[in-house]
């Protein structure tokens, strides 16, 4: 099957185009707006099926950040048959820089000149024929948001696969030409996975990845030459960049006309308020508060009650059926305690998570997230962190896994490591069920406030720990702040709903797999040894919990049940609720029974210290695995598991001890 890859700048509408091409025929849901890994889909055109790959949005194909390397490697090593380069037509000058790099690589490129309607509204005139001729690439005008031009684009791209490549000799200055000629002969006596012309250019640019590659695979002569080039401090790299830029500039001056001055747009008016030096941060705080308040009201109060009622009714019905057919006690216990008590307790919170994702998706889609990073940069910088770290933190509110993966856009190793290590303090969606359970039992009237305070506490802890890391483990300068502030757009309902559905599916999938397995396993431990009263302290589960429980005594929740639930939470955070449901509300299929039961075991103070523990302690297995993958080291994976536990424990103890002293 032929493969078509999509590349383009962030905010060029690449993902919208990907959705328009593949329709529902795709997999791997990602966090809205952020394609952290490549996404794949399929499309049928002219009775032939094509594989469509959506690469992370990048401004260039250098090797500065991880997402650029992902995109570049796929184009060079994944050998797509043709590459569609998505261009924001209103910002063609900048977008073509990436195109120049693609042409330089010798890739078969088709340009999708996207957002043509907006370009027209701004009176930007683009001569497509001239542009196509001078760049030496086919160009198709598209409006991805209205699904216009998609068929033409597919036609152009699929036809190009079978044609010879259009050749536009990329012109270099005399000096670059001479240097290239001195390298090319050295490349000819061996085989490389990269195109040789491109390899030569990258050697001159002192591209780190390529230099490493030559170190491993090059001939002695070539290595000597590379070392020679590296040792000379010339401005040749700059000349290559300028050369590329001039190549684009020349072509544009012939084919694009734009009016001199843009009017004050709606985006400018909104930005004036939300990036204001005094109001920026309070407005951001207010927006987040509203999001959590709405999440709480709609998700819990309205939808949550619905699901709870449904599960309760279903549970009673199943219980009766089991009774009527006089099923074995063991089976009844498994279904009622394990499935309804455990997994059911988790499912009750699905609506809440859905609503949170809905609002975060809207924030992301409108373009507000970039402003949030902007207004937070001042505080972040004082703490020795990079402003962009904040975006990965907000994404972490949804789930820490994409949050950690989003740190790939940070170029500097120091910035990135800190961003990874503090991400788990951002309270993810899976922790919500735990808070909600305790809120329902102890703070039913101040739910939104409690939830918001926990999130705020998470942010503060992340920032404090980040500051400490930047002073100790990772010293040095943060890289410069530079970020696009995309124009505000109305979020597309389909894209928000699609992303929401992906998350719901992911959540249900986990409830059916990881959480089910954990709960089942613990259920088995709770009925053994044979003959013991289920979920009692005499069971294996109770014995294990009893051994661990004293650790948590200073924090006020030294029961064996709490200990067991916390440890199961390392598999997946939702499992905490699942296990509490199983051990505390054994024998009941009604989800609301658990909250009532908790009231007799916890106090409002210990509920708070427990929630604080949950907020900070060891991240879930999926997050730990991601840390291992992204840092490429077990050391950091182990480090993050342990240090977060220590912080969680100290904080919970502090809450309980200070609270007790104050008489709560």
């Amino acid at each position, binding site marked *: 099957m032929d493969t078509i890859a999509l590349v383009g700048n962030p905010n060029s509408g690449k993902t919208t185009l990907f959705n328009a091409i593949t329709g529902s025929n795709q997999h791997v849901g990602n966090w809205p707006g952020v394609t952290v890994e490549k996404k794949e889909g399929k499309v049928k055109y002219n009775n032939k099926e094509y594989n469509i790959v959506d690469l992370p949005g990048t*401004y*260039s194909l*250098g090797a*500065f950040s991880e997402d650029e390397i992902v995109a570049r490697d796929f184009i060079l090593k994944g050998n797509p048959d043709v590459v569609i380069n998505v261009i924001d037509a*209103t*910002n063609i*000058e*900048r977008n073509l*820089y*990436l195109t120049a790099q693609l042409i330089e690589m010798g890739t078969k490129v088709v340009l999708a000149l996207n957002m043509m309607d907006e370009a027209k509204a*701004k009176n930007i005139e683009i001569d497509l024929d001239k542009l196509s001729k001078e760049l030496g690439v086919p160009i198709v005008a598209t409006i991805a948001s209205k699904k216009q031009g998609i068929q033409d684009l597919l036609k152009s791209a699929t036809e190009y696969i079978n044609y010879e490549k259009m050749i536009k000799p990329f012109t270099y200055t005399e000096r670059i030409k001479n240097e290239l000629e001195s390298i090319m002969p050295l490349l000819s006596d061996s085989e490389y996975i990269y195109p040789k012309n491109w390899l030569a250019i990258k050697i001159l640019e*002192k591209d780190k990845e390529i230099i490493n590659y030559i170190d491993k695979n090059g001939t002695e002569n070539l290595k000597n030459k590379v070392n020679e080039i590296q040792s000379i401090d010339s401005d040749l*790299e*700059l000349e290559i*960049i*300028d050369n*590329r*830029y001039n190549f684009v*500039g020349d072509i544009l001056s012939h084919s694009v006309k*734009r009016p001199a001055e*843009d009017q004050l*747009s709606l*985006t*400018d008016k909104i*930005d004036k308020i939300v*990036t204001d*030096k005094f109001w920026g941060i309070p407005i951001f705080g207010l927006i987040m508060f509203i999001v959590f308040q709405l999440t709480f009201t709609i998700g819990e109060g309205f939808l949550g009650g619905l699901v709870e009622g449904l599960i309760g009714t279903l549970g009673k019905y199943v219980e009766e059926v089991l009774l009527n057919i006089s099923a074995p006690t063991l089976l009844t216990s498994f279904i009622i305690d394990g499935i309804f008590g455990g997994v059911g307790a988790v499912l009750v919170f699905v609506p809440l998570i859905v609503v949170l994702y809905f609002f975060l998706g809207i924030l992301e889609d409108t373009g507000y997230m*970039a402003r949030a990073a*902007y*207004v937070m*940069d*001042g505080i972040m910088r004082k703490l020795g962190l990079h*402003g962009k770290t904040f975006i990965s933190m907000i994404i972490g509110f949804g789930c820490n896994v994409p949050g950690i993966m989003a740190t790939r856009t940070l*170029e500097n190793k120091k910035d990135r490591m800190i961003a990874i290590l503090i991400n788990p303090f951002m309270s993810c969606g899976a922790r919500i069920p735990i808070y909600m359970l305790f809120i329902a039992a102890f703070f039913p009237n101040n739910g939104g406030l409690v939830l918001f305070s926990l999130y705020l506490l998470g942010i503060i802890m992340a920032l404090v720990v980040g500051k400490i890391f930047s002073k100790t483990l990772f010293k040095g300068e943060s890289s*410069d*702040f*530079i*970020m*696009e*502030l*995309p*124009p505000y757009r109305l979020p597309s309902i389909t894209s928000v709903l699609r992303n929401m559905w992906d998350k719901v599916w992911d959540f249900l999938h986990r409830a059916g797999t990881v959480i089910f397995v954990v709960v089942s396993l613990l259920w088995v431990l709770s009925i053994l040894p044979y003959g013991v009263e289920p979920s009692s302290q005499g069971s294996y589960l109770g014995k294990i919990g009893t051994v661990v429980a004293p650790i948590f005594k200073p924090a006020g929740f030294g029961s064996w049940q709490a200990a067991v639930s916390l440890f199961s939470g390392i598999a997946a955070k939702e499992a905490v609720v699942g296990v509490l449901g199983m051990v505390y509300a054994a024998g009941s299929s009604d989800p609301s029974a658990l909250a009532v039961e908790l009231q007799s075991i916890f106090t409002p103070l210990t509920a708070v210290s427990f929630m604080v523990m949950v907020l900070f302690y060891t991240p879930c297995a999926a997050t730990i695995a991601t840390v291992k993958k992204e840092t490429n080291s077990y050391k950091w994976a182990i480090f993050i598991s342990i240090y977060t536990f220590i912080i969680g424990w100290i904080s919970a103890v502090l809450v309980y001890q200070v609270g007790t002293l104050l008489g709560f």
Partner: protein
Amino acid sequence: MENLYIEQSSLSSLKKGECGKICGISAGCNSRSRLCELGLNKGVLVKIVKNDIGPLILNIQGHKLAIGKGLASKIIIER
């Protein structure tokens, strides 16, 4: 001394609402390519949207870019 009559200064010294044309970038290669791929290179016209606390906000042909003060001070512009 040919440029005597053209006022040169760094981008970070411009105030809100002022415009300038980039005539040089005195940053290293990494920063230089970063700026270039985000549309900041010689000959480009920029307008300052905001320059108080925090990073500057620039308007480059209708598109907005936020850029740290340190980096902005390395961009030489003429008015």
